């Protein structure tokens, strides 16, 4: 089938899935109201101002943030897996998210605004992690695949220690909810911030999609890609920077959500094949839907209150990671 047709059909189907999960995400909540009530409250806000406010000011931004986070982290997984030539690479496992979290916490302690201040310090943190990872895993050995993951685990462990250190030495009220934030939290955002975040990540999506065919070519190795006319150095740099940038933004807003970039790309690749021109839009839309579902579980599983969404993504993702690792070693 023609590639454009294929991308279109898959995107349309996944957009419908995404919209359905978003509607579900908005309608599920602690104040049990059915969908009809909710739609009515949105159309005639004066009839039920409380419900309309809950939906517009709390649930919608929360669901939108979950969609953005899912899309960004899934896409981050695709890019890292392709460029680092390792099917188990992912922003969280590599410690890129951890680096961004350190940067974000430092930004919060310094009293910077969520954007651009904290976004910038998170980006700086993720770039430092990325440089460390690339340095640790460089050099030609046949164990390179495991070495990359091992480097990631070490960077991650170090980042966690630094985060806990920073949390321990400050008595900052803004870090009060840090434990929640560290495990992924979508509850602290308003519609304006969510909209701003969306405006920031969409150009990143476009850049990565435009370069998606070069990800295909890079899967044959840098040298072969270069001999096929790809300006490998430039393309890899742009891809890594764009990805780290959008991942940092997401970490700055909702903390650490692990394994999303592993689960979604793998499921998509099994179903849709390895062509990145299809995978990139599929992971954006499918990743968004996946995260909304995880967030629904996080809100509904505990009888009282809720748990961090990162708990759900890790409960699903970590066992799958172990399964994929076992399978890739066979």
């Amino acid at each position, binding site marked *: 089938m023609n590639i454009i047709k294929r991308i279109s059909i898959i995107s349309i189907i996944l957009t419908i899935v995404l919209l359905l999960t978003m509607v579900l995400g908005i309608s599920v909540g602690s104040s049990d109201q059915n969908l009809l009530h909710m739609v009515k409250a949105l159309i005639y806000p004066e009839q039920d101002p409380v419900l309309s406010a809950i939906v517009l000011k709390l649930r919608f931004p929360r669901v939108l943030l979950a969609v953005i986070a899912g899309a960004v982290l899934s896409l981050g997984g695709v890019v890292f897996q392709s460029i680092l030539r390792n099917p188990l690479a992912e922003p969280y496992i590599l410690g890129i998210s951890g680096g961004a979290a350190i940067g974000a916490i430092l930004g919060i302690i310094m009293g910077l605004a969520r954007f651009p201040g904290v976004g910038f310090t998170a980006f700086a943190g993720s770039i430092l992690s990325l440089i460390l990872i690339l340095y640790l895993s460089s050099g030609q050995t046949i164990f390179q695949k495991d070495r990359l993951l091992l480097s990631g685990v070490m960077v991650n462990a170090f980042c966690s220690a630094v985060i806990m250190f920073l949390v321990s030495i400050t008595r900052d009220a803004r870090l009060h909810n840090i434990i929640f934030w560290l495990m992924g939290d979508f509850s602290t955002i308003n519609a304006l911030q969510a909209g701003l975040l969306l405006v920031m990540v969409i150009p990143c999506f476009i850049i990565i999609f435009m370069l998606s065919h070069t990800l295909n*070519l890079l899967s044959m190795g840098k040298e072969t890609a270069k001999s096929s006319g790809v300006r490998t150095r430039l393309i890899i740099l742009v891809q890594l920077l764009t990805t780290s940038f959008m991942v940092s933004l997401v970490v700055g807003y909702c903390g650490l959500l692990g394994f999303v970039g592993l689960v979604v790309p793998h499921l998509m690749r099994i179903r849709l094949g*390895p062509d990145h021109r299809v995978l990139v839009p599929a992971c954006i839309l499918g990743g968004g839907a996946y995260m909304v579902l995880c967030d629904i579980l996080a809100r509904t599983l505990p009888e009282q209150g809720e748990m961090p969404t990162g708990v759900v993504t890790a409960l699903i993702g970590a066992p799958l990671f172990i399964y994929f690792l076992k399978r890739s070693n066979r």
Partner: protein
Amino acid sequence: MNAAIEVNHLTCRYDALVTVDRISFSVTEGEFFIIIGPNGSGKSTLMNTIAGLMRSAGGEIRIKNRPLKSYTQKDLARTIALVRQQASVDFPFTVAEVVMMGRAPHQGMLGLERTADQAAVREALTFTDLHHLANRKMHQLSGGERQRVFIARAICQDPEIMLLDEPTAALDLAHQTRIMDLMEKLKQEKGTTIVMISHDINLASLYADTLLLLKNGQVIRSGSPVAVLAYDVLESAYGCSLLVDTNPVKACPRITLVPESQLERIRKAGKG
């Protein structure tokens, strides 16, 4: 005859180590040119530099009468295709998808395929006799089949010059001749210039129009197989005992390794 590749006083460095040392040669358009030499003689460095993957430390390379430096990455990819030894692909792409990637230098950024691209893929698959495997996943193929897919991909790139770095390494006998025959056919039918690195001197002797023997980054000798594959030249280049006679299949030199235990007997027989 026009030169496809001209190399003048080329020097390449790997950190401080000089791997290619002021060498000069030229490859004529449409010839089968094979580079031989012991390990670490600079063969791969030379090929990677011609392919534009590495920068030289001095000297000049001209591709089709134009300096290599004046080519953009994409221009160069339309002129030169490269097949690396034991090439592989990370994700489970199909054979047809990998071959289609060869069209990248002729396509836009997203690699959208036109009818001409599909025709080129079909032709390359037929040429390499891979049509029946078109929808097979790469990791389901044998090493020899996989190497043929990468050759089909390079053919699909529609280059005037094809560079191959030990394409027959780690392949069985049938696949070795098959790949060499394929290159011969490409040269005959499309006039493609073939430049290959080979460790198998006998295969090189059978197929090459011109041989280039390298050692320690310098040209020991170049010319026809008969001129290059002389007993004394080879023995000093490789540092081992060899017997050179005439190949019964084609009137070209044939090289036989002489084990230490047989050395005395061979010397006594007055040969070598």
